[in-house]
Structures are given as C-alpha cells and as structure tokens.
C-alpha cells in the first residue's frame, strides 16, 4: 500500500492562506518520465495536443508538472509540428 508523499509546504502556491483551510492538491508528475518516453516525436500530435491549450500556446511546466529536460524536448517538438502545420501557431 502506497500513501501519497507528504506535501512540500515551501512551495509558493501551497502556502496556507491566513489560517484558512489548506487545499490539498494532487502531486504533479512528469508524464514523460512516468511513461519512459525518451524522445518526444513531433509527429505524435495526439501526445503534443495535450500540451496545447485552446489558445495554441505551449502549456507551461508549472501547470503540467513536466520535468525540465522533457519540457525542453516537448517545446522543440511542438515548434517543429507547428512548422509543418500539424499544430497551430495561434488559435483565435
């Protein structure tokens, strides 16, 4: 039986707000590390699409929880995919 890891309270967004109830957020984790993806392919629009919100921007790592090396690969892949019209640059 595994329990969720204790929360790291030093995180900015986890700071208790004026003695009020704290929100317990699920711990974010890098999906690419979990699925052992070593190379982010720009052709895989299904995967990349999950990191593109409505506006067409690249989802920041503070939201998605992706680790730095994987975020770098992901950003590169998204930019390649945009060039070949697999993904949009902007969506109105």
């Amino acid at each position, binding site marked *: 039986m595994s329990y969720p890891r204790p929360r790291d309270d030093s995180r900015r967004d986890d700071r208790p707000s004026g003695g009020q109830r704290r929100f317990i957020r699920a711990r974010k984790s890098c999906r690419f590390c979990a699925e*052992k993806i*070593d*190379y982010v392919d*720009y*052709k895989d629009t299904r995967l990349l699409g999950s990191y593109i919100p409505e506006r067409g921007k690249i989802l920041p790592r503070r939201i998605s929880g992706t680790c730095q090396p994987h975020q770098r690969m992901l950003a590169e892949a998204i930019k*390649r995919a*945009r*060039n*070949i*019209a*697999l*993904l*949009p*640059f902007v969506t109105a």
Partner: protein
Amino acid sequence: MSGRRTEVIQKEETSLMRVYEVMFIISPTTEEGDIDKLITQLSDVATSQGAQVTKIDRMGRRRLAYPIQKLTEGYYVVFTIEGTGLEIAELERRMRVTDAVIRYLTVRIDQELKRAEKFRSARAARAAASRATRSSRSRSQIAVAETSDEEDEE
C-alpha cells in the same frame, strides 16, 4: 586506453552518415497517380545523390492546423534518409521548385535518437545495478547462513 581510441574512430565514421527525417506536404489538388509519381521521383533524387531512403511513411490526407496557400488539407509524407547532408540540400531544392509540395520540414534525428538510446541504456543499467545489489545482498545472506552452518558442524 585502446577502448577509448576505437570510440573516437567510430564517432568519426558515424558523423559522415547522418539520419534525417524529411516531412513534406503535397497539395490535395494533385491526383493519386501524380502523388505516387512525385514520391518516387523525390526519393530517386535522394538515392541518386548517394543517400539511402530507409523508410517512406505516407501519413495520408489530413487537415492542416492552419491554411497554407489557401489550402486546408494536405497529403503528408515522411522520408527517413541516411546520408551525408548534401542529398538533403538537393532534395530541398527540388521540393522548393515543385509546386505540388506546399511545405517541407527536415529534421536531423541521429543525435536525438542517440540521446534517447543513452537514456534508455542508462535506465537499463540502473535497473540492472539495483537488481545486482539486491541479489548480492541475498547472496551474502546465504553466505552468512552457510558459514553459520559450518560453524555448527565444527
């Protein structure tokens, strides 16, 4: 020492042969037969320059994420090419002058694949190491048990 030297030589050899991925979009207004003809034509350009087209992947017709030359659809094709890079220059030149090719993208993937391979082997090594320590621990426990047996016999 000799191991390091061979490694350097191999690096030089592989640097001559690179792996590229050339993706291009053919205008949907071209007919099926013309698409086939164009694909063989372009792969011949690469092979005639001395490269090897190891894979031709037709992703087929799909919607473009944004209009290119007022077109909203395109026929996607991916070539995987092994070569020195000179063939790529020629291939790109040909695609630029071909009107049916509305967009192309060349990506050099050998370094990235090597990096991915490195991660994979590092992970395998880590897994093997942890397995080894676990098994060696159990083996040492067995050894301890055996010595205690021997002591009993004495």
